[in-house]
């Protein structure tokens, strides 16, 4: 009887040993390829590193420069427009998609799977696809061909040649890729709303409209917050769609954080400044991550 606690203690520490062993590859990866590069990023942002020259410590000069840079102000504005409009469209379209799918009884899984296709396709291919959808030449550009055919246009339009047109095009591509994810998440959220709520509301005489606003929407609150935050983090850091469709142009009309950091670091070879641009997103990211982990970790327990 007295040997029992000791044995349990032995098993415990052995278990800690096994856990360390099992987690070792993960720790090596995380420390070597995430933490260490992050530390290097912070250090680089405090230097005037130019490719081919040794780095010199310059304190906060990069931060001050970037904060006062007009081009960067435009980048912040573009990133916010791109992200907010795109995420808002995803929420609305996702909701519509979930409502439609919840009305489909036979073949719902089939359509749900089919609608998710954009979400699993490479973003580079999505970007190329929408580049061709909006292309100025009728043979390559679907919209021009289609509108000319309908007689709604007499001349092809170069949709992506104007700043507003280019921004709209990259927003549409980003939205089209991700709204199915919202739709599927919302559909799953709807399935978890107790049926009795709807039945009780019907008995009380609530119409479809009121049931939607008073039961469905509040019931989806949790899923909506999590998907919106997740999408916000992904969208504000989007690189692929913008780089492939517009390279940040025309001018710098669609330049966002990641494409601008890329341009400064690998186009102008100013690594210190490029890294500083990336680091400016970190506060937003931290807020997003804290909020989202609070929701997701609560679920896990």
């Amino acid at each position: 009887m007295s040997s029992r606690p000791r044995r349990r203690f032995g098993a415990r520490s052995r278990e800690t040993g096994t856990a360390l062993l099992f987690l070792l590859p993960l720790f090596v990866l995380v420390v070597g390829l995430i933490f260490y590069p992050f530390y290097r990023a912070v250090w680089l942002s405090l230097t005037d590193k130019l490719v081919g020259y040794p780095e010199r410590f310059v304190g906060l000069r990069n931060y001050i420069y970037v904060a006062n840079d007009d081009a960067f102000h435009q980048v912040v504005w573009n990133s916010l427009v791109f992200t907010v409009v795109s995420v808002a469209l995803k929420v609305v379209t996702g909701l519509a998609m979930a409502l439609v799918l919840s009305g489909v009884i036979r073949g719902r899984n089939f359509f749900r799977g089919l609608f998710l296709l954009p979400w699993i396709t490479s973003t580079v291919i999505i970007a190329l696809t929408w580049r061709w959808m909006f292309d100025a030449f009728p043979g390559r550009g679907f919209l021009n061909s289609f509108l000319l055919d309908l007689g709604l246009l007499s001349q092809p339009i170069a949709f992506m040649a104007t700043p507003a047109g280019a921004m709209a095009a990259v927003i549409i591509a980003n939205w089209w890729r991700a709204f199915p994810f919202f739709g599927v998440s919302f559909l799953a959220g709807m399935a978890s709303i107790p049926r009795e709520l709807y039945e009780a509301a019907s008995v009380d005489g609530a119409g479809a409209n009121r049931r939607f606003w008073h039961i469905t929407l509040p019931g989806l609150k949790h899923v909506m917050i999590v998907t919106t935050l997740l999408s916000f983090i992904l969208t504000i850091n989007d690189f692929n769609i913008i780089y492939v469709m517009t390279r940040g142009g025309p001018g710098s009309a669609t330049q966002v954080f990641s494409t601008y950091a890329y341009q400064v670091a690998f186009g102008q070879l100013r690594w210190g400044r490029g890294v500083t641009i990336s680091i400016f997103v970190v506060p937003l990211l931290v807020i997003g991550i804290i909020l989202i982990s609070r929701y997701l970790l609560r679920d896990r327990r």
Partner: protein
Amino acid sequence: MTRALTWIGLALFLLLILVPFWWIASMSFKTYEQIQFATSIYVPRPFTWENYTGLWTETRFPLWLRNSVVTALVVTLITTVVASLGGYAVARLRFPGREGVASLILILYLIPPALLFIPLYRVLAELGATNHLAALFLSYPTFTVPFCTWLLIGFFKALPEELEEAALIDGAGRVTAFARVLLPLAAPGLVASAIFAFTLSWNEFLYALVFIQDETRITVPVGLNLLIYGDVFHWGQLMAASVITTIPVVALYVFIHRWMTEGLVAGSVKG
């Protein structure tokens, strides 16, 4: 009334999803002249395979495809090993700081690759890995491992604990119990996690663009981007390349789609 609305909505969503895919696929079967002079716009007539054969013989696409396949397979292997060990430890072993490790994995999963590409380039350059597929073998696990570990934690937690306890009572150590009892049971989860790792690597663009310059060593997404910005204006070949690149992912996805649609969203639905 609502039935009609449902069908109209379904039709609109079908068009919205399928028209862009179909536009690319149809262009891949058109000749250069059909595209250039906007003839037979909606359906390729005549229908030609010349873009596919041209892509295979005139461009470096086969090489890029090979690079993509090698990268995705190596990354999937590394990810599956690291994530299954880590996922098991967090889900099943009791050790101090377990909750902390779980939160850390979630946070790492949320860090976007766009944040780290510049310093990672320097670190990889110091290791002599840049301009080599090795750069991708090393950097892709930074996003596949947190994601797959997070998935597998949930998966291991859902397996019945009694089976493992039975093995432990029979005198097996934790490692044996993991290898002999849990891993086989977790096979569906491991397959799903492997498919996610494969897809994420297959589709990745930013790291591949930044870390590799040699045109014989790039992967398909970077190669596609070269085809447009190069001097070659073979629209049809570019479309054919897009179709070929999408097919493996769709095939894998058909395989796990049921699990995926439920698994992907489970985290955001509970509670």
